[in-house]
């Protein structure tokens, strides 16, 4: 498991990790939880995993490149986690994201929130994910089965149904 970036935020146990390869969300989650030493304190854990689909906008996609802005990406993710931890009572937050070349069924993002109560865990997780989608500097370029390449133009709002 190799990560490009890792930082514990001050005060609360929170981590942002970017992976150039070998991204196993369940393993990262498990290791983080084991290390965090919160046994008995957390009653609610909300986990979101985003995974690459083999179809997008009606076209078959065979690969994708995830570009990011090293430095700003981490800074924005930390800011998002910090905002969430001010809005909700959370014990720990872990955000991990892939960068580089990925294939369908590869995981892209993990957001995990540990809290005493489920309302906080659910709300903080979703807030972080929506904020990541709208403000963390990552960009996706798809390679279609036809070998045509195209940039994904914008993310949709996850709260509204299409």
């Amino acid at each position, binding site marked *: 498991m190799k990560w490009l970036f890792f930082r514990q935020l001050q005060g609360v146990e929170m981590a942002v990790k970017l992976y150039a390869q070998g991204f196993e969300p369940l393993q990262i989650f498990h290791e983080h939880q084991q290390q965090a030493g919160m046994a008995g304190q957390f009653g609610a854990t909300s986990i979101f995993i985003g995974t690459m689909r083999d179809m997008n906008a009606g076209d078959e996609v065979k690969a994708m490149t995830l570009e990011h*802005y090293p430095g700003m990406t981490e800074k924005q993710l930390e800011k998002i986690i910090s905002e969430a931890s001010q809005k909700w009572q959370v014990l720990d937050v872990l955000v991990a994201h892939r960068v580089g070349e990925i294939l369908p069924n590869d995981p892209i993002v993990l957001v995990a929130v540990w809290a005493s109560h489920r309302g906080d865990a659910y709300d903080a997780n979703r807030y972080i*994910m929506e904020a990541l989608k*709208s403000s963390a500097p*990552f*960009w996706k370029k798809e390679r279609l089965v036809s070998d045509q390449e195209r940039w994904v133009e914008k*993310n949709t709002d996850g709260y509204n149904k299409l």
Partner: protein
Amino acid sequence: MLMSIKVRYFASLKEKLGRAEHVMDVTGPVTVAEIWTLANPGTAMPDNIISALNMEYVDSQQSVKEGDEVAFFPPVTGG
């Protein structure tokens, strides 16, 4: 006042402009929007392009100072 400013481009904008980053010497005061114009004469900033200054989102009317890093990129599509 002569300032050295690092300018970066990402994703589709980087491909369109054909460059990822460059350092410019400019005479201030100057805004983020003016940095674009000086760096890309004759090319209007596309409507959807977002500006960042030292890795924070900013309005393009924000002023820059010596040593700043200015970035331009399209809407983000991570997650």
